[in-house]
């Protein structure tokens, strides 16, 4: 009995993941012309080519779907930011720039879902908590990166790791959303240069 239940649960999870993927495409297409707040489940399922009843088998409501999509994006962003946080003590400015590009690329790939998350977090507590958890995880990881770098002599020892991490993380979160998301290729290039210069000057330059 137990193994049948497990199999059923596993296949349900797979099915939910497949439908989530279909709906992700539909959300991205729909949000070209409307806001997440105004988007109806009706329009969403029509766009995805699935039955309304199927939607409700796997998701409680539109917010539940968004929460699932945001979860995936958060994992992708944390993964991309690892390119920065795992930089070796002898990393060069070009390595930092490359890491910042990874983060920005990931954000741009998922910008529709992130914009919907920012929008919905104004009124949906669950989404607000997800966004807050992304920031919390990032602050913790940046603080560790700073502390490790201070130990290795590659990061300015006069900085408070936690406080510096708070400001830099919020800068990244907001700047990606407000500045990088709508930017064209040339603007993005300049923005990433500025972001790299800021992080380089704050953390590493004083030790070089």
């Amino acid at each position, binding site marked *: 009995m137990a193994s049948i239940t497990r199999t059923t649960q596993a296949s349900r999870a797979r099915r939910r993941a497949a439908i989530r993927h279909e709906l992700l495409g539909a959300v991205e297409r729909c949000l070209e012309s409307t806001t997440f707040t105004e988007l109806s489940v009706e329009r969403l399922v029509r766009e995805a080519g699935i039955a309304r009843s199927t939607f409700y088998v796997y998701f409680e409501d539109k917010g539940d779907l968004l929460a699932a999509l945001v979860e995936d994006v958060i994992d992708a962003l944390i993964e991309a930011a690892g390119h920065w946080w795992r930089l070796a003590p002898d990393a060069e400015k070009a390595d930092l720039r490359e890491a910042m590009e990874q983060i920005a690329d990931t954000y741009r790939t998922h910008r529709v879902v992130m914009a919907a998350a920012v929008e919905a977090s*104004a009124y949906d507590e669950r989404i607000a908590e997800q966004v807050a958890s992304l920031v919390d995880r990032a602050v913790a990881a940046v603080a560790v990166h700073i502390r490790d770098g201070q130990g290795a002599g590659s990061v300015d020892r006069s900085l*408070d790791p936690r*406080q510096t991490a708070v400001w830099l993380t*919020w800068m990244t979160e907001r700047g990606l959303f407000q500045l990088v998301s709508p930017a064209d290729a040339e603007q993005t290039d300049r923005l990433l240069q*500025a972001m790299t210069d800021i992080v380089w000057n704050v953390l590493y330059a004083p030790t070089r």
Partner: protein
Amino acid sequence: MSDQAAQRPDRRAEVAERLRGAVERLLREGETYASLSIERLMNEAGLSRSTFYAYFTDKGDLLRQWSTHASDATRAAAAAWVALGPDVSRQQLRAALRRLIGDYQPHARVTAAIYDATVYDAALATETRAVMDAHRRHLADHVRRGQDEGWIDPALLPDETAAWICWMTERVLHQLVPDADAPTVDELADGLTGILWNVLYAPAGRTPAAA
């Protein structure tokens, strides 16, 4: 009639101020601006529902009234920082930033609600974008002046650097400052000082103790 009409803008500002106090209290209790009804708002302020509609078309309109007020407050709060010049020291920077955060704090909660509302209010989004652009230009001018006079890192892109710093500051002021006690404000000022000192002034050879 014409007298009454002439008094209207003042009265609108006055009512907006009174409602700001009421909204501050409700937000502190955990309400969100998006879910707040006009009924509840006017009850809290001790005013009638019809008073609201005499001066404002909707909650977004009220936010727009506050927005003008708040951007003046921000500009005043940031003035001591952008006025710093060639003899800038880390202590002066710290004092200016501590003042910026402290002066902004009374406005932070309601302004945070304004920025949250920009995601579903297009008119408000345009307005806050203009406000942020003005801050960015002020800061970019400061960076350019420092680069010309040799006390800010000449390698920085003034506009883009200013843009990242403005959004960084916006976010922390709105996310963390409303609930911050005095020691927390001190810590935030220390954090921001470390960042801005290293980004802007230290690479141009300013030493922390420079007079």
